[in-house]
């Protein structure tokens, strides 16, 4: 959305296409947490300090040019969002900034109460509606990028409600489809996060980078069953109220002393080790307790959310909840330069779909920031390219020769998610990864058929399964090859971080197969 706005401002005519509804189906609308930016409103701060924390969290693997762009351009984006009326929480006349784990000072802005993502989405949607140059089309699923002589000339899409094939001609194309966390059984994703953009870019000839680094958010909600809330919601609670993370013996095992300080990769690892050691909570996680906080304190910090919890039968003054790691974000993605250009001419990427800025472990708060900054950069560069390019002819429709698969594709997706969670999750071994590859290989071997007329849910599942299996193979192959542990990639058979592995791995498609460059 940010990319579309900036491109339109630069004079481009923009088509914004979403497989779901515009601004309501991706990850941004679900974000309930904070946005990292060196505004210096709370305490003095500079982008260089934000960058230092980002690089530190990335465990030596950040693409510095991207991280630098992220930190330097963040303040301008956050101020622009402020001018558009997003409603960053304020106190004493300035924008409020809280300290999140991994940051050296209070740096993270937010919208109360746990409303950051919805407010950001709503603000961007309102801006989009004011621009006549932007045509917005939902329920349009891009199945493949269109190429001519290796140059991206637009996209092939299917209108999901009717099954009609649509060709889109474009002088420049930006992939902003988010990440891949839907690959995992336990995820905080929307169903659109199946790695579509990675699969599109791969099939178009682009390279992906750092695919093995999937961030598990350590304290995703586990039990009791909670509806109408994102499972990541305990993050803002911990910013404001601390909270105590406890094992089955009701002992703090992270030495946080009621504060919220442990980095995500370390906290994830510690919780899983408690569970493996038989000290987990009943559903296989850890306890998170706010029982040392009074009703008044809870209400002052999260008023309406406390009511929503009550509807779920949860009273934080009387009971701890159970939390456990949950797939949340993907550090890897499409390889781009600092102008968001992929390896395919006229194809750009933005947001979480971009790999490299966050290295082996993303600093909390950098996801929405990169959605803004990379979108802004991609929109500007794509518009500049489009201004001097001539319009390509629309691509010919794709011939679809595949046949409908007999097994239930919705069930196949669930099985793939279980395999990924078990073997390619936060703790990995060679045996597990090889078993996963074997299972994924069986799923990979089919051609996508043409959809039936009208809305065809089975075809949609097949489409998703095809992309998910391809992207799952990329993650698994990269994880198998990296014989060390670093950040979000933890190998039980190679527990140490190795200096020799302070390098990126890339994947590309070659002869239909996934080729890994280590």
């Amino acid at each position: 959305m940010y990319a579309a706005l900036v491109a339109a401002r630069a004079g481009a005519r923009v088509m914004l296409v979403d497989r779901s509804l515009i601004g309501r189906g991706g990850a941004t609308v679900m974000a309930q947490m904070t946005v990292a930016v060196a505004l210096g409103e709370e305490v003095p701060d500079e982008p260089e300090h934000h960058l230092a924390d980002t690089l530190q969290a990335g465990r030596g693997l950040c693409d510095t040019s991207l991280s630098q762009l992220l930190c330097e351009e963040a303040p301008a984006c956050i101020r622009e969002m402020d001018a558009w009326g997003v409603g960053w929480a304020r106190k004493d006349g300035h924008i409020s900034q809280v300290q999140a784990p991994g940051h050296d000072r209070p740096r993270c802005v937010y919208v109360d109460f746990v409303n950051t993502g919805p407010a950001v989405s709503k603000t961007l949607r309102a801006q989009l509606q004011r621009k006549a140059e932007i045509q917005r089309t939902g329920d349009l699923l891009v199945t493949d990028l269109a190429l001519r002589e290796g140059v991206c000339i637009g996209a092939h899409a299917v209108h999901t409600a009717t099954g009609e094939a649509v060709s889109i001609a474009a002088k420049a194309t930006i992939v902003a489809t988010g990440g891949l966390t839907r690959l995992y059984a336990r995820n905080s994703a929307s169903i659109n996060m199946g790695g579509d953009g990675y699969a599109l870019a791969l099939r178009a000839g682009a390279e992906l980078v750092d695919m093995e680094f999937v961030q598990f958010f350590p304290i995703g909600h586990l039990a009791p069953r909670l509806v109408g809330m994102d499972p990541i919601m305990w993050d803002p609670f911990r910013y404001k109220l601390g909270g105590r993370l406890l094992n089955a013996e009701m002992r703090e095992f992270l030495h946080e002393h009621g504060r919220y300080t442990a980095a995500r990769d370390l906290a994830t690892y510690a919780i899983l080790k408690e569970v493996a050691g038989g000290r987990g909570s009943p559903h296989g996680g850890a306890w998170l307790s706010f029982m040392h906080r009074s009703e008044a304190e809870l209400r002052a910090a999260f008023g309406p959310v406390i009511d929503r919890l009550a509807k779920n039968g949860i009273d934080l003054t009387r009971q701890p909840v159970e939390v456990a790691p949950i797939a949340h974000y993907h550090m890897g993605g499409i390889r781009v330069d600092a102008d968001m250009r992929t390896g395919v001419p006229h194809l750009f990427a933005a947001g979480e779909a971009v790999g490299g800025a966050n290295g082996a472990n993303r600093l909390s708060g950098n996801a929405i920031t990169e959605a803004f900054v990379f979108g802004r950069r991609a929109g500007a560069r794509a518009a500049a390219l489009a201004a001097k390019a001539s319009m390509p002819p629309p691509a010919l429709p794709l011939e679809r020769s595949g046949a409908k698969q007999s097994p239930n594709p919705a069930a196949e997706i669930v099985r793939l998610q279980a395999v990924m969670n078990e073997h390619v999750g936060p703790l990995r071994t060679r045996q597990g990864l090889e078993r996963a590859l074997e299972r994924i290989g069986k799923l990979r071997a089919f051609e996508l058929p043409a959809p039936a007329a009208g809305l065809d849910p089975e075809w949609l599942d097949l489409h998703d399964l095809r992309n998910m299996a391809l992207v799952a193979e990329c993650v698994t192959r990269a994880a198998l090859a990296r014989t060390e542990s670093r950040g979000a990639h933890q190998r039980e058979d190679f527990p140490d971080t190795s200096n020799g592995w302070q390098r990126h791995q890339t994947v590309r498609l070659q002869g239909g197969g996934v080729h890994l460059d280590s």
Partner: protein
Amino acid sequence: MIAKLKVWRGAPGAAGRYERYEVPFEQGQTVLDGLRWIRVHIDPSLAIRFSCINANACKQCMVEVDGKTVYACTTRLTEAEMTLEPLANKTLVKDLVTEIAPPDER
């Protein structure tokens, strides 16, 4: 526990029908959980619309349950039979899916 769901099935321009499904559930599970279970275990051709699964953030899973418009992701399953229908005031796409995008985003 078993939830009994009576689900309207059909496409524009043809007479619809109700299908009955029995869905095993645990206390706290939702109508959306039940519909997703049906797609995985019984009939993947059942059309439903949702993105965010459980967070009530995407606001796409609106359906009518016993004649009342609700979000499927926050409505709990019960052992009493529930009748699920597409939104009556929106154009039907298929089964429980209706056209809910703003007119200038189609």
